[in-house]
């Protein structure tokens, strides 16, 4: 699975570790983990497994028994459902 940033028009972080993102006039609050993940995602497509390794290196492995890859993919899907990021299967090719 690959991921890139969605259509968020603005983003703000404070010292709490959380971030606010503005999407379609709504402001969503991202958890500290989601905020760290979003910081690793750019405008271009990025492999989620690679992000999982970076995230695990930054905050440690998941504590609930899931693999870093599975936990990161789950979090990416949650963010995608809210429009914060876009995802596509690894074998897909971007249009254009």
């Amino acid at each position, binding site marked *: 699975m690959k991921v890139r940033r969605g259509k968020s*028009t603005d*983003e*703000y972080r*404070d010292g*709490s570790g*959380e971030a606010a993102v*503005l999407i379609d006039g709504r*402001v969503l*609050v991202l958890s500290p983990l989601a905020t760290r993940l979003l910081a690793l995602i750019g405008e271009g497509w990025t492999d989620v497994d690679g992000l999982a390794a970076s995230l695990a290196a930054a905050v440690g492995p998941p504590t609930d028994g899931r693999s870093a890859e599975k936990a990161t993919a789950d979090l990416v899907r949650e963010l995608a459902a809210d429009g914060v990021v876009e995802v596509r299967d690894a074998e897909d090719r971007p249009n254009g």
Partner: protein
Amino acid sequence: MGLSVVLRYAGAHARQAREAVERCWSDCLGDGLTSYPESVTLDVVLDPDVGTVGQAGARGAVAATGLDELLHVLSPRLTAALVEAHAGRLVMLHAAGLADPGTGRTVALVAPSGTGKTTASRLLGRTMRYLTDETVAVDAGGRVLPYPKPLSVLAEGGNGIKTQLAPSDEGLIVAGGRGPELTGIFLLDRDPSRTAPQVEPVTTVRALALLAPQISYLTRLDRPLATVASIVERAGGLVSVRYGEAAQLADVVSRHVGATP
């Protein structure tokens, strides 16, 4: 709110409409000295003929067959026009605004319609300067532009029509003191069962999410989240207040404006 308003009256009862509007909105009338570079214009039609009113309404006029109804519909239309004119320039909170008449320390009481802004304004405005019960417009420097519109009060048996009361006629303080500067933002949550207020600070990120639905034209602002965050932090952060009665809220606000900045 830093704009001139031009109302063009028409209809069989145009004069009656004008006199009533000027009475209700007397606290927003200019001093004859201050001029504003921009203006908002609305056509106002009071006429007993339904057809005439319908045609005027279709042309965009604020129109009604009765005076109470006209005043009722004028208030939100005028507010909407002013807010639209400032879109992208000011942070406009759906809030009541009250200022300490001595220091200018100003609080915004943010809440959706029908959840206590006008009631709180009527109580607090007797000892604090009433700035608005609807829209607190804040510039980048934290200065609040007063909008002492009529108090819109739901009358018993009024068929949903709100009576428009001139604030000064209701004993509210509407002028004087130092320029209002926003030093407190309270997000109101009225719970009639509460016997004491519950006051909790909110982080800036969470404040942005909580305030966003109560900010007009948020997305028209340049860097909206940073702009609002700057105003929130300048005001000392958002405070969530759950309260039962307006008197509890008055205590919270009085302590805040009385506190050393």
